[in-house]
Structures are given as C-alpha cells and as structure tokens.
C-alpha cells in the first residue's frame, strides 16, 4: 500500500484523513504545516501528498513549490485539500505544481475515491 503524507493545520481534519487512509491500509505520516511537511518529505519518500492550502508557518502552495523543486518529488502526485471553490486558488495551486485537488467538505468515501484515482 502507498505511503502518504497528510498535511493540515487542523487536527480534526488531519485526523480524519489519516484515519480514513490508514483504515484503507495506507501508511500515513502527518504534518501540521508546510514546513513540517517538507521536513518529513526530506526524510522519506512518499507516493502521494495531500495538503491543505491555508496553514500557518508555510502554506500549502509554497509547500508544493518547494516540493516540486526537489528532484525526487518531480512527478509525485500532490493533491490540495481546499475549500476554495473559486478557480483562482486552484489555479495558483496548479501553477505551483499541484496534481489536483479535493474540495472540502469531503467524506471518507470521496477521499478514498480520489486517492484511488491518483494512485490507480
């Protein structure tokens, strides 16, 4: 099963994502903000990164940009978890190098379906 990095400053959201993915057999590492996610990504290789957009210290968009600058994260799927329903924010994420997004609120089934969509 896949190694997934879940990044969100909200403990409840992060908990829900991690719990759901673990339940589906994935190995999940949690990070509270973009900076901590980068630290985690430096130490181990992930198959998928799920990241919130609005976070303190380092937001999701800067995190994507920094991850994409690492050669080992060039083609790794990164999905933004966003409540932004308008297009600009999604496009900003895309421009930074995100693979796609999952719009909040999502339920565990939607999350798993999306993860399956990327991981195949």
């Amino acid at each position, binding site marked *: 099963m896949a190694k997934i990095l879940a990044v969100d*400053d*909200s*403990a*409840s*959201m992060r*908990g*829900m994502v991690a*719990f*759901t993915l673990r*339940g589906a057999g994935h190995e999940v590492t949690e990070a509270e903000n973009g900076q901590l996610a980068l630290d985690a990504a430096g130490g181990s290789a992930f198959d998928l990164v799920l990241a919130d957009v*609005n*976070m*303190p210290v380092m937001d999701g968009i800067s995190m994507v940009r920094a991850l*994409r600058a690492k050669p080992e994260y*060039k*083609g*790794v*799927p*990164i999905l933004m978890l966003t*409540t932004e*329903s308008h*297009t600009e924010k*999604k*496009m900003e994420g*895309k*421009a930074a*190098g*995100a*693979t*796609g*997004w*999952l*719009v*909040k*609120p*999502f*339920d*565990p*089934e*939607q999350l*798993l379906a999306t993860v399956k*969509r*990327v991981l*195949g």
Partner: protein
Amino acid sequence: MATVDLSQFHQTFFEESREGLDAMEAALLALDSGSTDHELVHTIFRAAHSIKGGAATFGFADMAAFTHVAESLLEEVRSERRAVDAGLIDLLLRSLDCLRGMLDRTSHGQPAADAGSEALRAELAQLVAGATAPVAAKASVAAATGWAIRFVALPHLLQTGNDPLRVFNELQALGRLEVLRAFVTESAPADFAMLDPGQCHLGWELRLHGAVARADLDAVFDWLDGDCELAIAPLAAAPVEAVVATPVPVAAATPAAETPAPAREATAASSAGHADGGSIRVGIDKVDALIDMMGELVITQSMLSDIGEHFDLSQLERLREGLAQLERNTRELQDSVMRIRMLPIGSVFNRFPRLVRDLERKLGKQVRLELHGEHTELDKTVLEKIGDPMVHLVRNAIDHGLEMPEQRRAAGKPETGTLTLDAHHEGSNIIVRISDDGAGLNHERIRAKAVERGLVSAAQPLSDDEVAELIFQPGFSTAAQATDLSGRGVGMDVVRRNVRDLGGSVGVKSVAGQGSVFTIALPLTLAIIDGLVTTVGAERYIVPLISIVESLRLPADAVRRTAGGGEVFRFRDEYLPVIRLHHAFGCADAVTAIERGIVVVVEDGGQRVGLLVDELVGQQQAVIKSLEKHYQQVQGVSGATIVSDGSVALIVDVGGVVRLGRRSKAA
C-alpha cells in the same frame, strides 16, 4: 467500503475551533488597537476558514453556512477590497461570539442556529459585496451520443504528478473509448537521445461513445487545466477545430462534492451525547517526562524485587538506597503527573482584552491593559473557575477604580488608566494580581455604607485595611449608583467565596488617589496538599501546612474564658479563640487539658484561631478524596485522605473552622 465514524473527531474539532476563535479575537483586538500587520488578517481568515472546512466535513451545516458568509467578508478584507474599520471589527467580534455560542450548542447536541445567528448571518451576507449566491450549475446533460476529444499533453504534464493513463482509464469508465490517432507533438526533440523521460510530447484524438454528461467529462480533465491542450465537441458536430487551450469549466465539476448533506445532521445530533467529555491537550514534553519517570520507576522496582528475592541483612544498605530511590521516583512521577493538569493562565488572561475594550466603550473611559506572567501554569480546574472572579474584579476596577478621563486629567494623571493583570509563583502558591492606577477605595464611603448596613458601629475605630476588608462582607456594594455592570447583587463576597472554594484567598490593598491592588493567592493544585498530621483521640486530622502559622504548647493558665463561654489565649499581641477539635468533631478519648495538648495556630483570610489537638505526628502530602462524593459535606472538613499506615484521616477545612471560631468569639 468500510464507513468511517467521524464523530470521534468532533471533540478535536470543537477544541481547535475554540482555539481558532480565541486567536481570531486576539487578532481582531490587535487590529482594533491600530495594528496594520497584514498577518493578523491572515490569522483571522485562517481561523474562519478552518472552522468552515471542519464544520462542513463533520456535518455541522448551520455553522458551515455561518462561517461561509463570514469568510466571504474576510476574503474581501484579505484581498484589500474592504477596509478595516471599527464597525467591521465590531461586527466580526459579534460574529465570533455568535460562533462560540453555536459551537457550545453543537457540542451539547443542540441545533446550532438560532434567531440571533440567523439575523447576524443575514447582516453579514448583506454586507458581502455582490453576495456570492452559488452559481447554479448549468444543466449540462449531453444531448449528443458521444464526444470528440482532442487531448494534447504539454511537456510538463507528468511533472505535476498527473498521468495520461489515468485520463484514459477514467474515460473508459464513462463510455466506450476509441483512439482515432495518437501523435508526437512538435515540442519533441528531433534527436531521440535528447528525449527527457520526464517530459511528455504526445497527443491523442479520441472518441467517447455513449450518453456521457459534459460535466462528467470535464471532471476527468479538471486537474489538467494548464497542463494540456484540450478541445471537446459533441459527436456529429463539426470536426474538431484548431486546437486552443480551452479553460476547463471547473465550477461545473465541483457541485457534487459540495452538496451539503442534511442527512448528516442526524449523525451529528445522535453522536453529541458524549459531547463535552472534557479533554486536555498536553505538550509532548510533559508526556515524555512522564515516560522517562516511568522508566526509572521500573528500574527501581526490579532492583527492589531483586533484593527481596534473596534478602539477608548484608543487603540492608542496598535496600535503604532502593527505597530512597523509590521515594525520589514517586515524587518526581507525582510532579510530572500533576504537571499534566497544569495549563498556562494565558488562556484566562486572553478574555480580558475584549472585556476591557467593551467596558471602555460602554463607560467612556480609557484603559490600557497590561498582562504579565501569561505562561504561569495553574491546575486546569482552578483555571476554569478563576475566570469568573477575575472578570468581576476587572469589571469593578474599571467601573469603580479607574476615573473618567477628565477626572484623571484634573488629578494630574494620564487620561488613559492602566489595568495590570499579573500572575506568578510564590512558594507553593500562584499569585494573581489585578491592579489599577485609579482613585483607590473610597474609605469614607465604604465605612458609611458598612454603618448603614449595620456591619460595623459608627463609633468603632477601624484601620484602612479593616475598612478595605468590609467590601468582602456579604451584601456589601460600594456603587453609589448601580450601573448595569456591577450592582447586580453579586458582590465581592461572592468573589471571595469562589476563590475560597478553590482553596485560595483574596485580599485588597489600596492607596487613595493611586489605585488598588487585588491579590488572589491560589494553590498549585487542588488534588494534593502538604499537610501536618495530628491526632485527636483515636482519629487523625490533617491541617493544611499553608494555613499554619505556628504550633505551640500552652500552660494551663494561658487560656482565659470569655463571657460567652469561649476560650481565648494571647498570641503576639492579639487574643485568639481556641477551638477544641475534639469538641468540634466529637472525638472520644482526646486530650482535654490545654497544657497536655498542642495548639496549632492557623490563619485564613487574615483571621487566626488556635486549634487544640492531642499531638503532632508529622508532615505528609495528602491526596484529597472528596467526602461529598463518597459521603456528604461535613462542616469544617474539606476531604479525606489515606495516611501512610493505611488508615483514613480527615483534612481540616481551615476556613470553615476559622469561621466557626469567629462565631464563638463574637458570642
């Protein structure tokens, strides 16, 4: 697919939302006091945003709807389309209060929205420019029998983590996919050796057969906007035109995910039964310290059992060492465990900027609030209960203590008064001080009021401190005119009672024209006290060390009888009543002759009495067990504990006993 029970995350959501609202409030107040730091706006936005996301995810639709409009308003502020003014801050503060209420109701399983929140939501929505009514998704049911698709990957497509293969798989899931042509794009290098495997130079002409909705088709390509050139036309229409990068209408792809599910409401309500279980967030360092201690305890334990297995007298020294180590471990473990319940007082202090701001507006006074020692830690229970008395003292300080700007100017003071909250450790106590640089207590008026209330006689000489003490008497209110803040029948006596219930004390020092200082002394924890074990007959009583002034043996003739039948003795220039514990608690076989027992002088709230016990056994830390919970409330006893020999000892409630003594003194 296994369903995930989301209710397990509700408590975390409530807690982080409350924290978010606190952060939001602090940021709003900072903005209000003139700060232009843009990060503050981000903090406020982020808090609203997180609450909205969480509320929607966990099915709290009312809260999600409310935060949605608040967020829209904040988005305008963030993108500098709306200026921050006092009116906006007021509105946002009100919204924040409303959200707190909604959170509380939700966590208690009640409907979050009420008339107030609905009215406020309407007010917010009205303010949001061009109210963001959700754009109705266009009916996009395909009339066609299929779609012609030209899909050309841009070279960087793979680097965004996307994969054309996924697109084909998903298209195939929608209908029958026919590949008309696959081709290499012009972006490909002429020399194969130059080809970078991380780049994609392929394009496809596809046909998707079947009654596929355009929205479903768009959803397949939604993540690829900007990563490919895409042209989609209904089949049987004109052949695909020149390739233009068509912006994919993403909006059409999302409504499915955004459907607010009213069905989830039921889940939220049913799971709210176990709503506020009361949890505590503990720093990792504290838990680590605990595990560390535990490790040492295990080592000590194995060392002792090793000694015990083949014990002979030659090992006595090792046994002593082991026991000493066990004692040290136990004490450290106890400290670590106690620290888990300790939280910084900052969480209580944080309410005050808002309160002060509101009072300033209401009373037309100018107040500068200073906070010191926010990091001082207090037991969680104490922390939860100290808020109300502090609010009362702060209200009083601003309402009665600080003068109006013109009065201050006339008195040669700066127009803005200063209110200082300060917390620090002092021995095994936490001292919280609330000081103002206002007019100080009006001794004349207090005295007059006390006489009028019959608390003292007009002729009685009273020192300033004694006059100040009068304000803590039940039923005393100093406000000449009851404002709507004080004078609600809740006086300083209630403050003192609340603090006493926490095992603390409160006192006041005041200098006319310079201000007043209210000092609250609180025990570090409510669960454990340092006590002096005494015997009375066959019983053991523990007197809290903190209230002991001195223990002494009195000669028989040192005690005099008063007219009312009470006993008093002279102690450092004052006469103190003697309370015979054996008499107060009805113990048999106790020492009755004063000269054969010990008198323990105790103090509570400035009042002293002497307690007569048989003898002193020693000091011990006592873990307090509530009597009320196991038996019933007993006058003069605050709880019970188990002493080292396994028997039960009662803990003397010094305040209660002193009050008992004062009554016998008055009699």
